[in-house]
């Protein structure tokens, strides 16, 4: 296993890195959209009061 360890190591870790990167991007998008939705809901509420 020693001679091929670097390849196995990189293969396994790159897979997790890719998955993590994607999940992080989902999280960032989610947060941004949530913020925007809350902001718009707030202005909707303000306008309904008027």
């Amino acid at each position: 296993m020693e001679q091929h360890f670097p390849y196995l190591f990189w293969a396994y870790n790159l897979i997790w890195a890719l998955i993590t990167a994607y999940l992080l991007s989902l999280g960032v998008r989610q947060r941004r959209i949530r913020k925007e939705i809350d902001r718009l809901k707030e202005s909707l509420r303000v306008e309904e009061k008027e």
Partner: protein
Amino acid sequence: MSPRRPGGRWASLAQTTLPVITLALATTTLYGALFYAPREKVMGDVQRIFYFHAPAGLVCFLAFFVTFVASIGYLATRRPGWDIAGRASTEAGLLLTTIVLVTGPLWARPVWGTYWTWEARLTTTLVLWLIYMGYLLVRRYTEDPDQQARFAAVVGIIGFIDVPIVYMSVHWWRGHHPQVLAVSGGGGLDPTMRQVFLMGIFTYLALYASLMALRIPLGRAEAELRWLRLKLGERPARRAASGLRASG
């Protein structure tokens, strides 16, 4: 009509349990790949990458099939749920395809001495990656959301129809995919290898399900945002009209 609130009981249950299941399966597969499966005769230990590489290829195919079905569903019913599912499945499929394209060269390097060969399966995977990147690009460059969904659906359908044709033509172009692995020459997969391979498939299936469970609520939130924007777009007009009436 307001879009349904993203989430709900089943969705949040899925969002927590599926990743946990995925992690458990992944650990089992890792153990299986490194210790349980025997050493391959010809290639040695680097062949163990196969257990992370090949199942991803199969499940990405499933993901694109789901996109195909969702695309047809959207064009037939125009329900946004289909569009959201199609997009989520394409993203998940692209992630899996990227995994195949990354692990492939890492396997190829010690075995064939080069990172990339225009070998049939890798080439097919690359073409698939390009086709479905096109799906996402079309979405990115189309302004109108309804048009976006329609165009993406067409690409999702045409792209999937192309998949078997690409597979066939690239294989003919290249001759056949290299030898089936075995511990004792010739033959098929050794039973222990087959077990780990199956484990790998379950792991990627669980990963796919997790990705869908996480991506779909995001899609619903995007739809809700669009709806809110539309609603707010109407408001100023109404206010202006009532303002005129008051002063006139």
